[in-house]
């Protein structure tokens, strides 16, 4: 059994794409279609890595990312952001949330801006999980 990777994305096509990449590279994919479902599966499945979209209905990636990175049980799970949102926009949103009285959060382990090739996604995961 390969390492478990959770994909959180509201777009079924993106999930299908990521799932295929993960399977092709020997990982075990787990799918969530929004932030709420994602948090639930993190607790239940304890994935080794999370591939996270930013803009989603029902708890965005911005919120989920923050919740994970400030929770001592989950903050060590590496997160790869895969989004159409530019990296600097995402980082700015986290900075603003920190300024409004949150704990500072580290930058994500990797940030991939769509569109992304299958190989690029696979290489990124491999680099983190070894």
């Amino acid at each position: 059994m390969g390492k478990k990777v959770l994909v959180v994305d509201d777009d079924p096509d993106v999930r299908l794409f990521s799932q295929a990449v993960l399977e092709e590279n020997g990982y075990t994919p787990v799918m969530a279609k929004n932030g709420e479902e994602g948090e639930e599966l993190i607790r239940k499945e304890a994935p080794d890595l999370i591939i996270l979209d930013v803009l989603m209905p029902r708890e965005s990636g911005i919120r989920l990312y923050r919740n994970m990175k400030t929770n001592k049980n989950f903050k060590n799970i590496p997160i790869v952001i895969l989004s159409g949102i530019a990296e600097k926009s995402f980082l700015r949103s986290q900075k603003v949330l920190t300024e409004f009285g949150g704990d500072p959060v580290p930058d994500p382990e990797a940030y991939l801006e769509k569109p992304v090739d299958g190989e690029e996604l696979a290489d990124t995961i491999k680099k983190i999980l070894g």
Partner: protein
Amino acid sequence: MATKLLLIDDETASTSLLAFSLKSDGYEVLTAASGEEGLEIFDRELPDIVITDIRMPGMDGIEVLKKIKERPHPAEVIIITGHGDIENAIDSLKYGASDFINKPVRAENLALALQRAENKLDLQAKLDAYTKDLEQEVETVTHELRMQSNFLEKLIKTSEEGIVATDRIFNVIIYNPAAEHILGYPAKEILHRKKAKDLFSQELMRKYQAKRHDYQKRKKLDHFETHLKNSDGQLVPVRFTGVFLYEEGRIMGSVAFLEDLREIKRLEKEVLMSERLATVGQTVAGMAHGVKNILHGFKGGSYLMEVGFKKNDTEKLKSGWQMIQKNIAHTSELVMDLLTYSKDRNVEYVPCEPNDIAAEVCEALTDTATEHNVRLAEEPDPAIGRVAMDKTSIHTILMNLVSNAVDACILDDIPGKSYAVTVKTLLEEKNMIRFEVVDNGTGMDKEVQDKMFTSFFSTKGHRGTGLGLLVTRKLIEDHDGTIDVFSEVGKGTTFIVKLPFEELKT
């Protein structure tokens, strides 16, 4: 000041005696012994009255009289004549002497003559002063009048507003260059040749007439926007202000002020167009997100197909191909929306059946709706038949609204809730059709409602380009219709679109 006298006589003895007696009467007296000397003194001293002997060697009294009367300085001349020299005396009167007295000069005769001369001088002085005053006054008034009329003329000529004024029987008497510019007819064809009704339509004249009593009551000018036909037969948009002029309750004429709205209308159109293009600009920047998602979809699709080919996995091939097809559709939708939005398209009224268009749209979306357990229903108004409307626009408008409604249900996704989207049509008065798209999906909060018609705002994550409602609104506005929205979070949304139609000529 004493009256100044000049005595001219070659007989110096009688002169000095006379001078002495006049001096004692309070006159200032100058004397000369000849006509020539007399004139010299006259020019220097400008006496009021000259008393001259008629017979003198050299220049005689008549000659002196004539010369003095030629001078600008007004002086009365009394001639002293010899006894029986009546002919000369009459001559002297003809040349402007005020009086004559006979020799030997008797004190009472001279006093009387002097008295008369003085009165005459006095009267003349008064008359002069009066005439001068009058002339002065006339000049001042004329100057002011000229200034005023010049001012008014310049005011009318340079006015940016067209001014057309008529007398009481509506002959055009004022027609300024701005009016010339608006109406196209040169002033020489109009002034004193045409009547108001030759320039303004009957309808306008009626409206104008109807206002006149209003104005008397309210003392306020009414203006309205209208179109005037110019010399080329083109309709020129103007703001028209009309008023009747009264003098002591009687009509003395009328004035119409015309504000040329061509430039404003052109600018308005330009502003609208450039705003729209600016929106497209913003949208293009903001749209990057949508485009990125589409490209990612293409990459995903081709990755799946690659895997499918490599492993001979038809399932993978199929889902990869579907993904690519879906993103091709997305791309064309996006491009078409952009084109529709940025293009200045004319509304094309063609015969169509609005109920059928609604049915077509529902049919096209039924699969997607059913797939996500959304019931799609139609409630057409049977009173709506075949009418003339822009069929393509209606199709796009309904397509956008109904697919939005279905999306709102899909996004809501509360287990156990049964979702429905209803498309209603309703025949309203005044050639209007009301389209309603009702859903019980997520609904929108105030913030989303405020933003939904602005550029690139999408709540749909990967699916939205942010252009759908912009395009929808533009098509509705182009069709002279309206769009309203009622929405509540958790309860759903109702869009109400009203579009005018034209009856089909049978």
